[in-house]
């Protein structure tokens, strides 16, 4: 079923009775060529590209709950490709390009909205680092602009320019950055994958891997054993738990990141703004809610909820940056599980077990990578070769020392 304005009109006229399920609800087959574990954004995108671009078939996505119940359904919806390092930037820029064509690719309006992302700087050192990063972005084919204080003031006059503890010196602007309606990403990929024959199996929790002589044969699930030629795991947040079933220890810790949304307000904030002297970033959704977040709570957690000190820290940053939001009300706060990796960068790689592939370690930056992550993971599953934008994202990079450490924080996940 193709979606269009005409279709909406026609259906409206006949009482919306003709809409079909966005994805089927099939029973598991005994065996698939490809099993993707994890029905989040990355897993569903992987299935979509595997079927549509790499023309593979006999594909299933296994989701322990409902699709999109992980971090694709609980994030702050930001997309951008403003990374510094060559190990990262090509992947995120590839992702941004895929976002730009997503609606046409999926025939689903995920509301990709390129209203820009502005990172503020408050010191000469930060500005130097932004210049290095902005230049690296341009050299990698992305867009970037370095704004001085006056340009920032003109763009976002409501920031605190007169009384700031850490005066705004300028900012790094990526106009192609922005936001996407996060749930719709999962649904759009699911719909497209389903239409290409992918079986999306919800309430199907993987409880074990069947591995013989170093070769993966299939997975045990809450809906029975399912055989597979290749298994790709994309379960960020639960990576360690799932991969432990295959006997692997990962360079990953699970942490909680809180996010926040305010009551709906008339338009106030044009794009995404990040504070450079505290932990705060913000955008405003199409519905009108201010969507914002800050730093992770900082301790290992699977509890999917955080504590007050970080809430206060984030909102202190918010009030320091834009004191006009004081009388807006915080409506809801929630916590998501982050795969915090040892250098702050993700993994898309083979594992030591043949036929078993891993995609994870996204820290709190996985949402923006969804299209490219799916694309390059599909590439790896289909060809057994890393995609050209993901050659550095190896699981064994710490053995060689080829870290991709954007922040320079070292092997301490809660600092990334």
């Amino acid at each position, binding site marked *: 079923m193709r979606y269009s304005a005409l279709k909406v009109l026609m259906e409206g006229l006949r009482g919306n009775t003709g809409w079909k*399920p966005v994805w089927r609800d099939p029973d598991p087959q005994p065996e698939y060529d490809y099993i993707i574990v994890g029905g989040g954004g990355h897993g569903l995108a992987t299935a979509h590209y595997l079927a549509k671009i790499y023309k593979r078939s006999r594909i299933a996505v296994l989701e322990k709950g409902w699709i999109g119940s992980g971090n694709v359904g609980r994030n702050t919806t930001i997309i951008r490709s403003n990374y510094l390092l060559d190990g990262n930037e090509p992947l995120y820029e590839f992702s941004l390009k895929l976002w730009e064509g997503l609606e046409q690719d999926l025939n689903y309006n995920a509301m990709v*909205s390129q209203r820009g992302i502005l990172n503020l700087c408050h010191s000469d050192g930060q500005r130097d680092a932004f210049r290095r990063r902005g*230049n690296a972005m341009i050299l990698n084919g992305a867009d970037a602009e370095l704004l001085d204080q006056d340009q920032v003031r003109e763009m976002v006059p409501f920031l605190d320019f007169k009384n700031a503890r850490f005066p705004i010196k300028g900012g790094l602007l990526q106009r192609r950055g922005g936001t996407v309606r996060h749930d719709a990403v999962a649904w759009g990929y699911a719909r497209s994958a389903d239409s290409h024959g992918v079986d999306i199996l919800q309430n199907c929790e993987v409880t074990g891997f069947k591995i013989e002589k170093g070769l993966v044969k299939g997975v045990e699930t809450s809906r029975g054993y399912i055989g597979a030629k290749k298994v790709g795991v994309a379960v960020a947040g639960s990576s360690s738990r799932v991969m432990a079933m295959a006997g692997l220890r990962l360079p990953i810790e699970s942490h909680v990141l809180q996010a926040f949304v305010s009551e709906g307000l008339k338009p106030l904030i044009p794009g995404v703004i990040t504070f450079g002297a505290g932990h705060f970033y913000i955008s405003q959704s199409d*519905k009108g809610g201010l969507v914002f977040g800050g730093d992770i709570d900082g301790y290992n957690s699977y509890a999917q909820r955080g504590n007050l000190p970080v809430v206060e820290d984030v909102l202190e940053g918010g009030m320091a940056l834009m004191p006009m939001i004081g009388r807006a009300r915080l409506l809801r706060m929630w916590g998501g599980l982050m795969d915090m990796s040892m250098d702050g960068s993700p993994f898309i790689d083979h594992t030591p077990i043949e036929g078993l592939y891993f995609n994870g370690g996204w820290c709190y930056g996985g949402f923006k990578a969804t299209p490219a992550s799916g694309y390059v993971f599909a590439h790896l599953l289909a060809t057994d070769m890393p995609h050209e934008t993901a050659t550095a994202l190896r699981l064994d990079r710490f053995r060689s020392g080829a870290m991709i450490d954007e922040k320079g924080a070292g092997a301490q996940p809660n600092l990334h």
Partner: protein
Amino acid sequence: MSGINRLDGGQIDRNNVLTFSFDGKRYSGFGGDTLVSALLANNVRLMGRSFKYHRPRGVFTAGSEEPNALVELRSGARREPNSRATVAELYEGLTAQSQNRFPSLRFDALAFNDTLASFLSSGFYYKTFMWPVAFWEKVYEPFIRRAAGLGRLSGEEDPDTYDKGFLHCDLLIVGAGPSGLAAALTAGRAGAEVILAEEDFALGGRLLAESGILTDRLASDWIEEVTAELVALPNVRLMTRTTVFGQYDHGIFGAVERVSDHIPEPQPNKPRQILWRIYSKRALLNAGATERPIPFENNDRPGIMLAGAMRAYANRWAVTAARNVVVFTNNDDGHRTARDLSEKGVDVAAVVDCRHNAPTSADFEVIEGAEVIGSRGRLGLKAVKMRFKDGSEREIACGALGVAGGWNPNVHLTCHKRGRPEWNGDISAFIPVKSEDSALRVAGAAAGIFSTHGALQSGAQGAIDALNDLGISARFPALPEAEDAPVNIAPFWYVKGGTGRAWLDLQNDVTIKDINLAHQEGFRSVEHVKRYTTLGMATDQGKTANIGALAVLADIEGKSIPEVGTTIFRPPYTPVSIGTFAGRSRGKEFRPYRLTPSHKWAAEQDAVFVEVGNWLRAQWFPLKGETHWRQSVDREVIAVRKSVGICDVTTLGKIDVQGADAAEFLNHIYCNGFAKLPVGKTRYGLILREDGMAMDDGTAARLAEDHFVITTTTANAVSAFRHMEFCRQCLWPGLDVQLISTTEAWAQFSVAGPNARKLMQKIVDTDHDITNEGFPYMACGEITICGGLRARLFRISFSGELAYEIAVPTRYGDALIRRLIEAGKEFDVVPYGTEALGVLRIEKGHAAGNELNGQSTAAMLGMGRMVSQKKDSIGRVLAGRPYLQRVDDYRLIGLLPVNLDSVILAGAHLMNVGMESCAANDQGWVTSAAYSPHIGSSIALAFLKKGDQRHGDVIRIVNPLSDGDIEAKVTSPHFIDPEGERLRV
């Protein structure tokens, strides 16, 4: 004109007449009114518009769960959008505007959406607005954004202040209804430290809304008596206007106290609101219950409200939404509303009870087995249509309809730690799960105990049980006799049949049809339905909506409600102002300032200051006539190179290391050796992280065999100390060594330049020899200055000149800078700031923050050979990994522009001459750049691939951000005195 709908009685102060305005029109009400009760008294039923279809709406509830009556409260910079008028206390001069309508509340152009409703069904936007491609961001989205949103923020800085506080107690009691009051009485009398928090401005909870008698007197008398006793107990803290909004780990609760929201603006020096972090040993939730509606077609007209709210307005505020009302119910509680209104003289046209065994009444008609199936009256209810049990229909004229669908316990706080409530069939509602974690107990209606008697008893028992955990014995108090009616309810969730729309989520305009459509499209999990339809995502978080949607889903799937599931409630219980969470941490008070010992003196010199972490440091010292910062900085740099300058370097981290094993300890910390450093000598040291990357650098001075003083960079002072404590306590706990940070204990100044010694000799007491022979380069020692003041002297240099760092106890820092400047007059001494410090160190080729950014190896910094392989130090092993040892890695170099007028910018990238500028050809980047008065041009430090082998090459410095592309010569990073002779004179 006040009060055509005003009844007798109520908890209002009729002697206190308050005037207010709504949408520019003036009205009056009484003390004790809320904005809603006062509007109802003035016969105003239309109060808002819904989010999506802009349907006219009136008040639906009498509490903080209100979905409809949202207004912009106050004006100017204090405008508060989305304020629930049900909990806005009336004050003299209150102004409120309706919101999300244009041009007016009665005529809203966007109500046109309502006529398009069939095309704007759930999720329609995911299916369209995709063509033409460019139109989404340019046309569709801007339109949607303008149409969406509710109220408007002022866009001005919030003029009010907020505060934060911390409270500790044995027992936190959340909610001061009958259950909470009984609990507080019980715990208070037992001597426990008690906090009783109530979101309302009055104590009493649901008792205030009821007409029932306690033993033989009015509930208000009992409340007054209990309140008086609690106020008199020093161990009980009563907090009204205080919402406990969240439960966190280990008994910690977040609460917001609205100190000044009931008055026009805060009194001088008073905050608007306070964020309380409450540390409780035990907590008791008595948050009551929220009534739920029974959706039917067009159940959203102004005048249709919850029956319990209708009763609350009549009993507490003595108002009715209309003089003729109908009640629609599935349980006995609806009859109570009809009874109370009837007794107050309101014409109860009928009680429509869907049950077949409804109680009867002499005062009003009860129609059993019947349903309300529709309504009429666009801007205010005119009539409801009902269907008898035989299927025949009738219209009943009325101005208000009370709907009673049963009550849901307010379990929210019990879900904040991800507890899931469980279904109770007796009351057809979710109740808090019995938790093994007894830190939070639940009593009263929040526990599903709905009678007043049950609330009183369970509150007292809850307090006894909670205190028993703490070893505090409490006695069951004498409590008044109260009604103990059973909950007679027939599960009846919504009216079936019909072709129109029946609203579940009033604010977000989610109808039963929307739930059906979502399910039809495959959104079957509760969470999917919620996200696809936006049910429960509005400012009321679906407090009156969610259960109805579950019931609809249960019917579609042929399951029971608990099988379909529940949704998790997340903090906050009700929305909380953002400013409250920030407290005083905003503006200049966002973070504390740390001031250097010479700050006062520097301010007297009109120094320009710069934020360095939390420190404020002098950036440069402009003299009269200097109009550009470069004039000042160049002058300061030249003065240091020519004569002598002074810089406050107190901000560098200082760590005192003492103990018999101090040297061995430092051998572990630094990658280079320290064991053999003689007493009286200082050595540069590089600290690696365990992953082999450079962490920090500084100097270590050996004052005695068992005593070192080390420095760290300003930025890493805290983390380096933490790391060293980790090494000491966790890795080598057997070493005899102690650490203490002395950053704040010593004021330290750098005295640098060819005349530095002459200057120092004027203040160092003469029994200390600081000649080049007596105190050579890298010497250190404890000395006295100015006639006996103890000090530490280090002959170390960041500038590349003959230099000393002199440290005195911090309290003498101000005196020392004044003495040094005075003594240095004959040498034309200058104070220099962080800018000149930066230029001097770039000229000298010293690494700083831009080079030590956590991504550099020792080899990159040109210190690869410093990493001693003869001993075990942190980072040595992993520094040996192949990628960190690769020969084509970056190396620190200097850059000198070919055209001396060119300006090099830090952050520019390096490309080989003749190569395309792209990532694949990237050769490195400029880390630090400055104008060097010494060289007479822009100079820079940079990391260049194989840079150590490319001195003398010409390379391009590209800056695509501003189309910069200049050529520069690769040099040694040491632009000045590469042999280090000036240091040693």
